[in-house]
């Protein structure tokens, strides 16, 4: 159809086409300039149209056209219809010389011949240029060349335009993200952040609305926190996992595209009143942990979400997830801060925080009520100047200075605003925040009453001990007479042969001796408890001391027909201790053993023991007597606690011997222990340091 005379005009048309395409802004203009440029009398084409292939449907959709056929824009040619499909499938130019003879002839278009040229971008056929003539056999080789050249020009221009658009969109996305992140970092309140995120996402995707929900692990529910133009305010809506679009993604942890929400079987009744058409939702994840869900909606039925939309939504999902996570952490931190604030405010202990210069940063109500100051009178003031006088300041400043480095504790006296004094227990601790020293915290516990009670108790205890000591002393004088005269009378009675009275005098004498033993023990105990019992340390031979004790105790031990055994494997040598107290302890133990053993054996053993701290001397007194139950052993070393009252009545004794023994042991830095089984006897073990340090006297 191109005659020789048309060569110049054909060249001109091609040049005009190239220039128009190059000048085109955007895809639409490119399509238009292709069809306009080729619509030239010199070329003689009756119809020109550019179709693009829609990825989802495979439909060819008309983008631009010109010619005698009035074609509606966005006209769809479905797969299986028309002649242009083949060019798209194999990427080659196809010529149909007589369309009426072609099996897939599209009857509404021209009835002559047709050329279909594929338009390719990045090696992929994205559309087709359809050129028709009303005459059959209207196209020749030269036409094919021109059309191919036009298609190539269009492809290049399209490629460039798409690249540009892509870059521009990425720039927009980036800007939106930056903006979102800026909001996120400046605004930590979760709902505001999420509102900002969804607003950005909606704007960038060009959809009508959307919403974001957080996942609440405790209830296994989603709660909508931000809602943007979805047809109602969904904020606060609770959505169960598995319910609706967001519930579904919360369950599957995969995004979902719902083309027609109202036809979707999974829809939630909570959203039945909204008018959205299609919905896209994605889970919000931190790693694999669900923190929420995001959904965007569109009310235009024309807009169907595709992979590209999903890609964009996926860009926002991590941002929203991080926002939720950060805000969650922030909220938790806020809650914790609030919790501690409540604790401090409601604490009955006065708490004050200071800066490096010892000035008050903050003080709790207990501090203000303890010292009688109002809040405005404390903040910024030097603590020690506030609650001490010049005389007592040095000690207070020492505490404060030390507390900047390490915890300090003590008891002191501080001044109230009205000048009165208060006894306080003081605790000072340095305050570190992330390794940085921020000053210190001081705590004051009012112990006025406590100290008063203690002083009273101490005074009462001391008075009691003094009373006991005096009483004991005063009781001894008449007792001396009772014991002495009864003993003397007994001697006289025996000499005079009045044996019938002797037994009674013996009873008076024995009772007097028992009373004396009681008084002595009470005196000892009261002295110990009054802190007036002293140690008189001397160095002595353990063996001699022990032999002396055994001589003293022998009559007592043998009274109940008991065998007396002394076991000394190696000579323990000398010890430095209070010999009188060691003797008294051993005599107490032997006296006990003798009392509760009949026709048995009582063994005293001694050994040198190097275990533990320093050398120890270990004394063991073992009997084969009555023995004790664990319950009886529990109270054994307490004052006035013979195993049973009946025992005391039968066996005598003061019940104080073991209590004194244990206290003496403790005074000398040792201990006494017992092992026993009912019916099998008992072993008392006294362990004492071999060399007692007089300066480091232990408290009883």
């Amino acid at each position, binding site marked *: 159809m191109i005659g020789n005379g048309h060569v110049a005009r054909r060249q001109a048309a091609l040049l005009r086409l190239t220039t128009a395409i190059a000048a085109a802004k955007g895809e639409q203009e490119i399509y238009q300039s292709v069809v306009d440029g080729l619509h030239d009398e010199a070329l003689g084409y009756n119809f020109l149209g550019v179709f693009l292939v829609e990825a989802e449907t495979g439909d060819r959709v008309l983008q631009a056209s010109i010619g005698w056929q009035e074609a509606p824009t966005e006209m769809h040619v479905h797969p299986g219809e028309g002649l242009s499909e083949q060019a798209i499938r194999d990427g080659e130019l196809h010529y149909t010389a007589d369309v009426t003879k072609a099996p897939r002839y599209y009857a509404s278009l021209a009835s002559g011949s047709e050329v279909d040229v594929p338009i390719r971008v990045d090696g992929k056929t994205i559309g087709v240029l359809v050129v028709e003539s009303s005459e059959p056999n209207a196209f020749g080789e030269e036409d094919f060349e021109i059309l191919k050249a036009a298609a190539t020009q269009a492809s290049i221009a399209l490629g460039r335009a798409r690249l540009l658009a892509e870059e521009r969109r990425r720039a927009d996305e980036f800007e939106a993200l930056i903006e979102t992140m800026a909001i996120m970092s400046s605004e930590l309140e979760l709902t505001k952040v999420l509102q900002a995120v969804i607003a950005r996402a909606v704007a960038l995707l060009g959809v009508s609305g959307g919403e974001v929900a957080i996942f609440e692990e405790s209830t296994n529910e989603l709660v909508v926190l931000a809602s943007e133009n979805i047809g109602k305010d969904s904020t606060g809506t609770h959505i169960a996992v598995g319910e609706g679009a967001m519930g579904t993604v919360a369950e599957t942890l995969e995004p979902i595209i719902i083309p027609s929400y109202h036809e979707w079987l999974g829809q939630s009744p909570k959203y039945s009143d909204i008018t959205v058409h299609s919905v896209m939702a994605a889970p919000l994840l931190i790693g694999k942990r669900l923190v929420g869900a995001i959904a965007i909606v569109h009310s235009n039925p024309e807009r169907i979400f595709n992979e590209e939309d999903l890609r964009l939504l996926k860009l926002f999902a991590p941002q929203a997830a991080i926002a939720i996570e950060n805000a969650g952490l922030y909220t938790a931190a806020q809650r914790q801060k609030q919790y501690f604030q409540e604790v401090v405010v409601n604490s009955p202990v006065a708490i004050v925080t200071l800066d490096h210069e010892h000035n008050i940063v903050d003080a709790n109500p207990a501090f203000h009520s303890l010292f009688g100051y109002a809040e405005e009178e404390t903040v910024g003031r030097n603590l020690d100047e506030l609650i001490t006088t010049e005389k007592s300041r040095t000690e207070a400043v020492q505490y404060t200075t030390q507390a900047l480095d390490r915890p300090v504790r003590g008891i002191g006296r501080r001044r109230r605003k009205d000048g009165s004094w208060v006894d306080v227990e003081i605790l000072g601790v340095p305050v570190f925040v992330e390794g940085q020293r921020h000053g210190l915290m001081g705590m004051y516990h009012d112990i006025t009453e406590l100290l008063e009670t203690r002083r009273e108790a101490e005074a009462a205890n001391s008075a009691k001990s003094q009373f006991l000591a005096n009483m004991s002393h005063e009781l001894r004088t008449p007792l001396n007479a009772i014991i*002495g005269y009864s003993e003397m009378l007994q001697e006289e009675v025996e000499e005079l042969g009045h044996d019938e009275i002797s037994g009674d005098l013996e009873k008076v004498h024995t009772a007097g001796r028992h009373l*004396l033993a009681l008084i002595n023990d009470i005196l000892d105990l009261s002295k110990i408890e009054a802190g007036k019992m002293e140690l008189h340390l001397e160095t002595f031979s353990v063996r001699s001391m022990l032999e002396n004790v055994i001589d003293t105790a022998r009559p007592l031990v043998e009274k109940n027909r008991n065998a007396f055994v002394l076991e000394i494997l190696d000579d323990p040598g000398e010890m430095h201790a209070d010999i009188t107290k060691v003797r008294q302890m051993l005599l107490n133990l032997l006296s006990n053993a003798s009392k509760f053993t009949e026709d048995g054996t009582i063994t005293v053993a001694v050994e040198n023991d190097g275990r533990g701290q320093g050398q120890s001397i270990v004394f063991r007194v073992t009997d084969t007597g009555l023995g004790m139950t664990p319950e009886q052993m529990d109270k054994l070393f307490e004052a006035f606690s013979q195993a049973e009252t009946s025992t005391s009545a039968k066996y005598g004794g003061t019940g104080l011997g073991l209590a004194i023994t244990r206290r003496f042991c403790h005074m000398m830095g040792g201990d006494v222990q017992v092992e026993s089984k009912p019916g099998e006897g008992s072993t008392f073990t006294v362990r004492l340091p071999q060399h007692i340090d007089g300066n480091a006297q232990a408290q009883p």
Partner: protein
Amino acid sequence: MAKILLVEDNEMNRDMLSRRLERRGYEVALAVDGKDGIEKAQSGNFDLVLMDMSLPEIDGWEATRQLRAQPATEKLPIIALTAHAMAGDREKALEAGCDDYDTKPIEFKRLLSKIEALLNADA
């Protein structure tokens, strides 16, 4: 027979102890306080002194120290008697110059053996 000076302020104790000692054959002289005790110990020719420690005016420890300071009585055997069953009393008495020590109420046999031991050592 040995002559013993008993320095004791309590009348009952004095009576009781002196009678028991006399029954054992000792010759017993009595002093009622520290001052009296010092005077009698220096004037009489005693073989031994039984000295109560808690005495009015001059106590037993001071009396003992004064007796030890005098040449006539510096070697006179003295047994301290005390109602304080306290550890330390023994050391305190020995420090003051007593030769022995016993606690009240008197365990008569024990006291006798102490008296005999000192008299025999002296002899």
